[in-house]
Structure formats: C-alpha cells, structure tokens
C-alpha cells in the first residue's frame, strides 16, 4: 500500500444555503461515490488523507461558515448547532449527494455524528476521527480554545516533533501571509467554538442512538485533547459501530499516523 496519495485536481463549488444567507464553499476532488468530509476546528486543510480518499471517492469538503477566506462574517448568520445541522443537510441536498459516506475529524466528527443522528438516512456510512461532542466527567476534553498557541502542538500530537506534525504546523514565511494564516486559524477556532464552547457537549449523547448506518470510530491512543476513553463512549452509543485505536498517535490520526489510519478506514469502507 502506498503511504502517499497523488495530488488530485481540486475544484470548488459554491452553494447558497440557509435562505441565501450563507454561501458555502466546497472543495471537490476525485471521482466515484460521494464522500462528505467535515473538517476540524482549525479549518479545512487539504491533506494526503483527503487525497487518498479522492482516489476512490468524489470528496466534497465544505468550509465551515466563517472559515472561508474573504467571508468571515458568514458565521453571524447561523445561531445554534441545530441551525448548523440543518444548513449542512441543505448543503448535501443542493450538492445532489445521494447517500454519501460521511467522514468527520474532531469538531467535524461531532458535526458528522449530529448530521447522522438528525438525518439517519442521509449517509451510507460514517467515519469519526477523534470526534468531540461528548463529556466524560473522569476525562474532560482539553479546552483547545483557551489553550495558549505554544501549547497546542503538545495537545494535538503524540509527537509534536514528528515530520508529519511539523509539516502541518508549518507557517508561511511571508509575514503578511503568516498574519493571515494565524488570524484565519484564530477566527476558525472562534467560529467553530461558537458551537463547542465552553464544553463541547451539546446533547449529542441523547441523539447518538438514532444513527442507523455502519459507523467506524477511529482514535489515537494517546489523544491528549479528547481521551481515548471516548472511543468506547461513542461505540457504546452507536449500535453496531466499530472502533480502531491507532497506537503512538494523538488527536489527528490521519496526519500523525497516516498509513495506519488509511488502512483502518479502507478496511472499514471496503
């Protein structure tokens, strides 16, 4: 198996949702069965994992309202998590996706689980990568929004010095681009945090039983942001779901342990 996918051609679709109040930007690549990818709190970054998925699927990766460059205030047009879920369902319909595979990472994992709980017939399969959305008293998730930037890498990665982590954390050298990148990430944390702060639990636990599709829960064994104990919490709440624990891995398995994650996901999706 290859450890690096070839870079696909990425196009963009612009979809108007929420009665014309939000214009969603969707990165699209690949061919075949539709796959909806929901990105984490820091925003959408097209990475080798998405390129890999695009070898077998048509990947649709929407940018969360407010995180699209040049349209930061879109976030103010959406108030509650319930509105977000409805807007994403509308997006799926307007993109014309029939029974997409839904994959979500961290904040996107929570969103994927919410979408599948609210609209059980929407996805054909669900892959959750270290999702937030639940609260265990013994293992409270770390609060990434109030974490100083210099302490984030240690929260996100088992080994922040690894090449994969360093590549993801790399900043543009041009000062203006660097400022734009930092401000963009800060703002993305703010936009997604609107639906996850102060405690990333908006009642998903009582809705998870509604999920009716095949579900894979992937977790980094050493996740310091959301403890691996949550893998069982999700698996116990979603009937028939499977769990894949990735060793020597933090909160972002598809980046830190690309090969292991791809293997687990491919095996599940068949």
């Amino acid at each position: 198996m290859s450890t690096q996918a070839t870079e696909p051609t990425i196009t963009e679709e612009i979809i108007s949702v929420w009665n014309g109040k939000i214009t969603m930007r969707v990165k699209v690549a690949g061919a075949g069965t539709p796959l909806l990818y929901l990105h984490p709190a820091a925003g959408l970054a097209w990475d080798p994992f998405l390129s890999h998925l695009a070898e077998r699927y048509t990947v649709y990766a929407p940018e969360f309202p407010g995180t699209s460059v040049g349209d930061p205030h879109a976030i103010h047009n959406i108030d509650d998590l319930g509105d977000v879920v409805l807007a994403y369902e509308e997006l799926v319909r307007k993109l014309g996706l029939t029974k997409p595979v839904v994959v979500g990472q961290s904040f996107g994992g929570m969103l994927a689980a919410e979408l599948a709980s609210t609209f059980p017939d929407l996805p054909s399969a669900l892959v959750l990568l270290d999702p937030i959305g639940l609260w265990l008293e013994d293992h409270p998730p770390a609060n990434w929004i109030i974490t100083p930037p210099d302490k984030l890498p240690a929260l996100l990665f088992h080994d922040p010095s690894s090449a994969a982590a360093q590549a993801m954390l790399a900043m543009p050298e041009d000062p203006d681009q660097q400022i734009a990148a930092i401000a963009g990430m800060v703002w993305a944390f703010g936009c997604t945090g609107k639906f996850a702060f102060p405690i990333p639990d908006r009642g998903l636990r009582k809705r998870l039983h509604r999920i009716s599709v095949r579900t894979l829960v992937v977790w980094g064994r050493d996740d310091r942001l959301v403890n691996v104990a949550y893998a069982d919490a999700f698996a116990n709440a979603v009937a028939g779901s499977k769990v894949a624990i990735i060793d020597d891995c933090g909160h972002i398995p598809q980046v830190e342990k690309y090969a292991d994650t791809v293997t687990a996901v491919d095996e599940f999706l068949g």
Partner: protein
Amino acid sequence: MKVTMFAQAPYRYLPDDFETDHESVCSVPYSLTTREGVYSSMRDFMDELMLGARSGFDAVAVTEHGQSSYDMVPNPDLVAGALAYMTEAEGLDVGIYPMGRSLGKSREPLRVAEEYAMIDVMSGGRLVPGLVVGLSYDASINNGVPPMEVRRRFDENLELVLRAWREQTPFAFNGRFSQYPMVNMWPRPLQQNLPVWITGIGNPATMQMCLLRGFGFNYLSWFGAKLTGQRIFDRFWEIADQVGVPRNPYRLGFLQTIAISETDERAEQEYGAHLEYAFRKGLGSIPMEKLALPGNIDIRGVQAILKDPGDFGLYSQMKTATYRDLVEAGVVIAGSPATVRDQLVDFCRSYGIGNLHAMLGFGSLPRHLVMKNIQLFSEEVLPHLRDLWTDTEHQHHWWPERLGGSPADVHVPTSDEMAGAR
C-alpha cells in the same frame, strides 16, 4: 473637568513569588488567602471609597471582575448600592459610578437595568451608569459565554437595558439571548436621561458606537498611557470628526493610576513595591490569550493586532515591570503633588480629556497609604484640575443633572450608521 475616585478591591497579601508560580490572576487558588486578609482588603476598599466621597471628588467609581484576585468585586452594584445610601444619608453630592457592569457576559440583562435604576433612586439621581462588553476571559472562561457571542450578547443586552429604562408601559422582548413576556421595571431611574458610559481598550468599532449613540467613552491607562495615549485618543477624535460629532472633552474619560507623596523620591519609596505588586500580580499576570480568546475579537481586529500590537503598550512586559518602567510608560503617574498635577493637566489638555478617574489604591498598598494618597490628591491636585475646560463652550452631557450635568437623550442610530461599526 469631572474627577472621580476609582477603586478596586485587590487581595493584598499574595505571596512574593506569586507571579512566577501562577499563570494568571484569573485562576488564583483561594487557598492562598486568609479570612483576615480578605476581610481587611474588602473593608478598607469600602472605607477608601467613602473617604473619596467625603473629599470633594465628583464621583466614586468601581467596576466588576468575576473570580479574580486583583478585584474581588463580582458585581459593582453591590458596592454602589452601599455607597448610594451612605452618601445620600450624609448629604454628599457625589456621583455613584459603577463603571463596568459587563453586558457581554450578563445572562440576566434586565437585572442590570433594574439594579442601576434602584441605585439611581437610592442616590437621588446621582447614578453614572457604566457598561462594558467585558473582558474576554471573564465573559467566556469565568462565565461560559462562547467568545464569538460576547459582543453580540452585549449589543442585544444594551438595547434591552436602554429600553427598559425608558419605556413607561410594559413591553415584550424577543431577543436571541433572552426573551421576556413582560418587561415592566420598578423602579425606573429618577434621571430622565441616564448618562451612559462605555469603557473600551481602543477598538474603533466601540468608539464609533459611543460617538454615534451619545455615550461617553472611557479609556484606561493600564497599558501605559504615554505609549498608547496618542494612538487611542487621536483615534477617538478622528472618528468623531468622521462621524460629525463635536470634539467635546466631556465625552471622554480617562482612568489613571496615581501615587502622590511629599516628594518624587518619597513617592517611589512609599508606593514602588505596591505598584509593582499591582501590575505583576494583577493585570500583567493575565495571559494575552485570555484577554483575547479566539472569536472574541473580529478577524480584522486580530490581523490589526498581529500587525501592530502598539495598542497594548507595556502589557507584554508587565509581569516583570519595575516601578520605573511603569512610570516611564505612563501606566502610573507618581511623584510630588506638583509633578502629578503638571503631568495630569498636560495630558488631559493635550488629548481633550474632560473626565479623569483617579485610581489611588492599588495592589498591596496598605490602608494608611491609600488614605494619604486620597488626601494629597484631593487637597493638592484636584483643585488644579477642576477648572480645566470651563473656559470653553462645551456642556457636560454625560453627567447627572443633579451634579451639574445636562445629559441628553441617547441616539438610536439607523442601520446605515451602524453598518460601519460592526
């Protein structure tokens, strides 16, 4: 010129090495305190305010900081209520000025309107109501409001508060953050037009809102007024010009930490260590990321701060700042009465400041020195400030009528006017 005495209730007995062992004043373990230390810090704070009320200040001002060691006042209206009654009973014509009731964190905005109305009644129409968006860590970490919602909560709550004061018949309020089937406040403020003040750190949008709506705007010298004053005050008056509002100094307030003794040298000896305590263990000890949580400041503001952090002056060095650093940056004005009044007159005149808020107690400063500071200020400095601006045509529209002001109705802007401010 209106001169108020501003005070906080800092816990005065934190250990010497506090700032090296603790990241922040916002998470100080309460186990560091003693019962006696908390009681005397709070009791002395109240006594200092009463001395201020009796010493000829135009108002006594307090604010709120939830869950913090540098100002143990969760709601300034508790303090203001006590002051309102005591000063009324003693016949003191002094303004009662809760400067920073945070509407960005308030989940019961109607309660804020009610408390202020009651204070105005208790004081016989001497309330000067201050409202703030609120510090990011306080609204979000201490109070659980998502950072992105703080400003929007403030905006909605402000509309409700203003309306609750004004309307004479019951009304329903259908907001996003709060809904009330009936708003019918008892009592209403005695003052027909309350002179509303907003405190900010230099955000142009906040300044523009104040100017458009007829609110007074307060700026605090925490970051070093000599470093930031030119930027902030020039910005305020330039925005005033842009929106076509006269440069009336009475619409601008300035809060300054002040330390006075018989001589400059003695001021350093008496106050130096206590000022260092105030900033090393107080504001300077709040990590920047807690002052500006992601989503709290608009993305354009984040870019502006990253490009040019000048609005934050000495802030980044505050944890190790010496007395000299604090004085040079203008975080503090300290010295003999002549030194202090020359600097204050010069500063207020240069920047068009018509309201000075003198912070005369700070950090670990013991009671007798706070009292000395208040006394020296009221006797040796205050008289020299009082007539500033009386030779101009300007009217003070941001002060209670009973205390010589002529407050005007606040302006409800059109959506076009507000468009640029959001």
